Each structure stands twice: as C-alpha cells, then as structure tokens.
C-alpha cells in the first residue's frame, strides 16, 4: 500500500446501551438518523469531505449491519485501489484472541494494520456523533503547533461542564491537565473524543500502556500518560453543531432539530454532503388525502395519512387515516390505517396493524429500564410486529413479533411496561 499522510481510525464497536432496544441487534453507529442515514455516515462523510481516503473502522458489538452498510465503501467513494475503508474486528492472534477492551486497546490490536498504511498522522474518531467537521483544518493546526496530540474541544455551558471530559489549557491552547467529569470544573472545554496523533508517538504510547492497562483507553490512560510525560498536547476548538445521541431523548431531539424551518444542522449544503447507501432514491409519494407538515421524509416513502413534526426513513408506508406526530419512523416500516402515533421511535422493518394507538396515557418511567425510557417516548425494536386494535402507553419498550396475547385483556400495554419477546424479560 502507498504511504498515506493521514489515516482515520473510527471506533464503531460500542453498544450504546442507553438507546435501549434500538441497539439490540446493531451497534450504535448503525442506528439510523435523520431519515435515511446511519449515525456513522456523518463521521465517514466528514472523513471523505476532509480528503481522508483511508479509514479503518473498528467494530465489535453486533457488527453485521454495520459491515453490510459499509461494504467496500462505495457510497463514500472509499472503494479504492490503495487505501479505502477496512473493517477491523477483534481477531485471534497466535493461539489466543482478545476482545477490544478499551478505545486505545482497540488500536493497539491493529498496530499491524496501521503500520501497513504507514501514516504520518492518525485521527481517532468515534462513530456515534452528529456533526460536520473538516479534519484537514485540525491537521493543519496539529502541524502548526508541532503537537504530539491534538484534541478537538467544544465550549459547553460551565454549569454542564462537570458532565464531560474537560481539557484545561494555557492561553496558547496547550493542554496541561485533563479531568474526567470534574465536580468543580476549571474550564468549559469539553473533549469531543476526536484526536489527532503523530503516529510514531502514539504507537509508542499504545505499546507502553498496553503493558499497564488491559482496558487501555484514550481519555482515561493515553492522554493522562502523555500529559505526565510533558508531551505537547493541544486543544483544537470546534464551533458548530455537535450532538452526542447516546440517549433516547437526545436521539429524538437531535432528529427533531432537523424538521425546524431553518435547522441548525444543515444537510442541504452541496459542499459538505452527507453520503450514505443511497441506492436508487425513488421519490416520495403522498396520496390524495395525505398531509405532511414540518417533517422529513426519505426516499421511497408512501404516505396516505397524516405526518406532522416527524422524521420518516426510506420506504416507510403510512396508511389512510393514520396520524403520526412527533415521532421517528425508520426505514422499511409499515403502518396500517387509522393509527395514532405520538412521540414514538419505531425502528426498521416494523409492521404495525390498523387502529393502533401509541404513546397515550400518563408519563411513568419504564419499570424494567427506568434509566433508558423516562422521557415519555415509546420505542419499538427492529423487525417487531404490533397487531391491530392495540393501545400502547408512554415509555414502553416493544420488541418482537407481538400478538394480542402479549397485551392485557383490554388490548392495552400501559405506560412504563415492556414486551420484549427476544429476551427473558416480558411484561
């Protein structure tokens, strides 16, 4: 392989357990976002738009869908003779294999791959954020500062700073201290989990730290180690839209940001396109009685009902008389006639019958997963079925091919209850 100046290593192995049933069969970066995209598309598009043509994608948790989606990288023009995209999963070495135990550990296991690319610099990214960023500007900054590591930071409100990893810097942006979720933060520069390293130095650090920590992590171990060694670390300030969509509520509201009249995150710019597996992009059909307002509808949708303040993925069918409000419906989902759907997130390939009411009743947190489902949003997992004439409350989790027997005698699933036929826990 020809030598590359910069290689992107994209961490896409995380489960994202706070997205509940949405990540039951796929890693968080593979969850759909903004109608037709998957979360990883934003980072991958940033790479190619920044001129990076060699990307290693580190997968671990439920990689099947992610592998299919990335394929040989055609949607991002990453199908190249030299470079391109390589999916790197944990593998056996000698007579033992090891899982990726931490973010830096994942790179440590792929030193051979990186050496083969032989980059000058390496940019470490995570595949679960929504933002647009030109990494080439960050690389210029890294080179100007002759830095060993550059960390992208975002100014957050001081009151919220204690929820983030905070970089404390001198006036020239040189980092002298890193504090993970400090109770009394000294600065409001939060790490975005985007790092550029000079590979020669990172290589040394990875090897050194792997002997100490089995779960070697950039934030917890590598950055503190480099600060301790008085290496030159710089903070690169990013201004712009950036969202971590790690919870149901943040995922929902970041989607809803897109339906505003003038959304803060603009996907319609020609010079910074977001690429995804677009296929043949059939148009959207709205029937004679359809109503579609303040909504995003992706390719191939067929709508005969009403869609208000919602985001629909590709090839979603909405039957006559159905009203969808404040909801996210992902690709290839079928919704029958005369349903009422309020504040729901419905995953891909779901089939919903007729006269189904969802998101009704009071707002009580989910009984089995109160930390996941607490914002009134009901979530339906991928490939689920919901029979006709059922009534579903708020903060519910539904997963599997449900039939009337799974609901109570009034064909109801009260708020806060779950039906998860794919795991042990049901009602």
């Amino acid at each position, binding site marked *: 392989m020809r030598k590359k100046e910069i290689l992107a290593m994209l961490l896409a192995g995380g489960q994202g357990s706070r997205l509940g049933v949405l990540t039951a069969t796929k890693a968080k970066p593979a969850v759909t976002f*903004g*109608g*037709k995209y998957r979360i990883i598309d934003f980072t991958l598009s940033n790479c190619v738009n920044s001129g990076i043509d060699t990307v290693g994608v580190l997968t671990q948790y439920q990689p099947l869908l992610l592998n299919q989606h990335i394929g040989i990288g*055609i*949607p991002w023009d990453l199908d190249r003779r030299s470079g391109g995209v390589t999916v790197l999963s944990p593998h056996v070495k000698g007579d033992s294999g090891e899982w990726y135990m931490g973010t830096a550990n994942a790179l440590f296991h792929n030193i051979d791959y990186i050496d083969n690319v032989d980059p000058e610099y390496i940019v470490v990214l995570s595949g679960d954020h929504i933002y647009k960023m030109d990494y080439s500007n960050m690389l210029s900054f890294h080179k100007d500062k002759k830095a060993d590591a550059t960390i992208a930071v975002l100014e957050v409100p001081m009151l919220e700073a204690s929820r983030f990893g905070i970089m404390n810097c001198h006036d020239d942006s040189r980092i002298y201290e890193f504090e993970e979720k400090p109770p009394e933060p000294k600065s409001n520069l939060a790490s975005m989990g985007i790092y550029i390293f000079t590979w020669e130095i990172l290589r040394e650090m990875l090897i050194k730290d792997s002997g100490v920590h089995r779960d070697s992590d950039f934030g917890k171990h590598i950055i503190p180690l480099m600060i301790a060694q008085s290496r030159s670390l710089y903070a690169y300030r990013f201004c712009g839209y950036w969202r971590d969509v790690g919870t149901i509520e943040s995922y929902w509201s970041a989607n809803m940001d897109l*339906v505003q*009249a003038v959304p803060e995150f603009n*996907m*319609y710019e020609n010079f910074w*396109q*977001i*690429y*995804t597996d*677009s*296929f*043949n*992009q*059939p*148009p*959207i*059909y*709205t*029937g*004679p*009685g*359809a*109503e*579609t*307002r*303040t*909504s*995003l*509808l*992706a*390719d*191939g949708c*067929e709508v005969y009902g009403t*869609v208000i303040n919602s*985001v*629909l993925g590709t*090839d979603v069918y909405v039957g006559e008389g159905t009203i969808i409000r404040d909801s996210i419906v992902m690709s290839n989902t079928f919704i029958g006639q005369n349903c009422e759907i309020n504040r729901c997130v419905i995953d891909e390939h779901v089939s919903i019958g007729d006269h189904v009411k969802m998101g009704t009743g009071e707002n009580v947190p989910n009984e089995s997963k109160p930390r996941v489902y607490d914002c009134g949003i009901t979530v339906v997992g991928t490939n689920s079925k919901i029979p006709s004439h059922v009534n579903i409350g708020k903060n519910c989790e539904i997963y599997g091919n449900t039939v009337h027997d799974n609901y109570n005698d009034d064909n109801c699933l009260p708020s806060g209850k779950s039906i998860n036929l794919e795991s042990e826990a049901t009602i």
Partner: protein
Amino acid sequence: MNAVGIILAGGNNGRLGELTKTRAVSAIPVGSCFRCLDFPLSNLSNSGIGKVAVLAQYNARSLQDHLSSSKWWNFGSKYGGLFVFSPYLSDDNSFWFRGTADSIYQNITYLRRSREEYVIITSGDAVYKADFKELLRNHEQSGADVTIMYKDAEPGQDLREFGVLTVGENGDVLDLEEKPLEPQGSKISMGIYVIKRTLLMDLLSETVSEGNYDLVKDIFVRYRKMLKINGFRFDGYWKAIKSVKSYFDVNMDFLRADIRRLFTQEQPYIETKPKDEPPAKYNSQADVADCLVGAGSIISGNIFHSVLFRRVYVGDGSAVKDSVLMEGTRVGNNCVLENVILDKFVTISDGAKLVGDPQNPIIISKGTTV
C-alpha cells in the same frame, strides 16, 4: 448471458422541442429519479448482460455525465463493462454517425472483439422493464435470424412515430413498416432486436458500403423477405418518449401505484446514478397531495397531482398543479403553475403565474428565470 448489448442513444427528436435542446432523448430525466437511459441499461444488466455499448452522438455531454461511472448498473468488471462511443476522427473516417447502422458500423471493433454469440440492440428512449433472457430464449428456439420485440398498439394510437409490424400466427413478421402514414399492421416495434453478432457484422458491412446507414430502413425493412424475422410480444408497461405529450404522460404515470412500484420497488430494480440528497423536507404550510417529490426537495406550498424531481424548492403560498418540475427547480412564493414542465434549474420568481393546456403543457427551458 450469451449476448452483448447496444443502446442506440444518439437520437434527437424535434417533437420534444426545448426538452432536447441540450440533451439527447435518452438522457431526459423521467419519473422523478431516473433518466430514460436507465431503463434499457438496467434491463440489460438485470438480464445478465455484462458488456454494453451506448452509442451517443447528439448532445453527448449529459449522457457522459450520467454514465461517468458504470458501477451503478453493475458494469464495473474486468471483462466487458460499459462502453460509451461518440463519433471521432480517424485517418480513414471523419464522419458523424450517418444513421443507426452507421453508428454501430463505425464501432464494429466492439462487436469483432466480443465473444458472445448474440447482440441485443435497444433504443434509449423508452420507459419499460423487460427480461431479455426470455427474449433470447425465444430467439434461439424459433431459429429466427432477427427477433423484434413488439407491443400491441392501443386502438386509435398514432403510429407515425413507430416501426409497425404485421405478425403472423406463429410469430413470424410478415411485414415491417417504418413510421408509416397509413399503417397496415397493428404491432408497435419497441426498437429492441436480437441478432447473431456475426450476421449483424456482415449486414452492416454490406449496407454501409452501399451508402445506406439506417438499421431499420436499410437493414431490417430491406432484408425483411430474405431474413427470417420473428416477433416477440411484450405485455408489460412500455412507453416511448416521442413527444412533449408522451413525456408528460409518462411522468404522470408514475403517480399510479402499480407503475411506480414496478419501477422503484419490485425486483429487479431500475438503477440510476445515485445522488446523495437528504430526505425531502415538508415545512409547516406544506400541502402536498397525489404527488411525487424527489429527495432533497424543500416544500412550503401547495402541490397537487404533480411530479417533482430532486432538490426542488416550492415557496410559501405557491400552488402547483398537474406539472412536472425537474431537478433543481426553484418556485418562489405565491406562484401559480398548472400544466407546466419546468426543465432543470429553472427559477420561477415570486408571484409568477403560468397556466398551460393539458394537451400542450408550457415548457420552460433549462436554467431560465421566469
């Protein structure tokens, strides 16, 4: 499959007026997300043909742009692939393509270097989905020299733009008329032919050396009694884009669920060059009924019974009815459009009113501002 494909995409058609001023008929956008050429190209690819030549001449730029990568139709392979031929200068030859036969003859090396037994020739100006495997099977079984795919004409249909066949009971073509004023037959030639590669090469050499250059008139019609020509009936949806009216109608046909699903949801798919447009956005005042809207569009106004391509913008208070709005068109606020075809990148200023006749829609040519 044991055949190579040739798509005759060179033609222009005066009856399409402004729509083909800057593009070949086969490059005309249709059905919100396709170009006309996508249909024959996908049909060939989906039938297992791995080597296809597109013969371009008239305004080839738009075709070249669309075909800039062959991978979308699965032609990116070591053997075969997609060839785009336009006229070129050489020592012994510096002609434009003088006709369809001439266009193939000037690129006869393509045929000579192929190893497949048959050639399937198609036109580039029709919207349809066909399986050429069946066509080839029929051709081989019948023992014909040439097989022509045809469709029964509808009662009262104007046949002046078509080749017309008279087909006997066992499928043999008894007569072949090209664009007849008083047609004897009632079968429309779809412009799709199967012929043995070596036979085609012989016929082309002979015909062109005699100074005749048209595939239909000078080969198939002229040799119709000497060759065994068979017809193969096609029963599915097929419409050729021969006039502004037929172009308008084909687009409106995509509003029918059966037609739309045939081309966009049922396998094998019709492929096209993907453009990474975001989802369409419907703003708070949008009212869109019985409409197709392409990806990347932003809609604030009222739209009824219309076909919108990608990246169309329709402003507040505008009313669009029975119209075709191609990619990148921008309709301002408080406009009224009825029976209108807006070519690509047209801008309609605020408050403009354009009302055409259903039989004769108004065409606004590419890139203009009204």
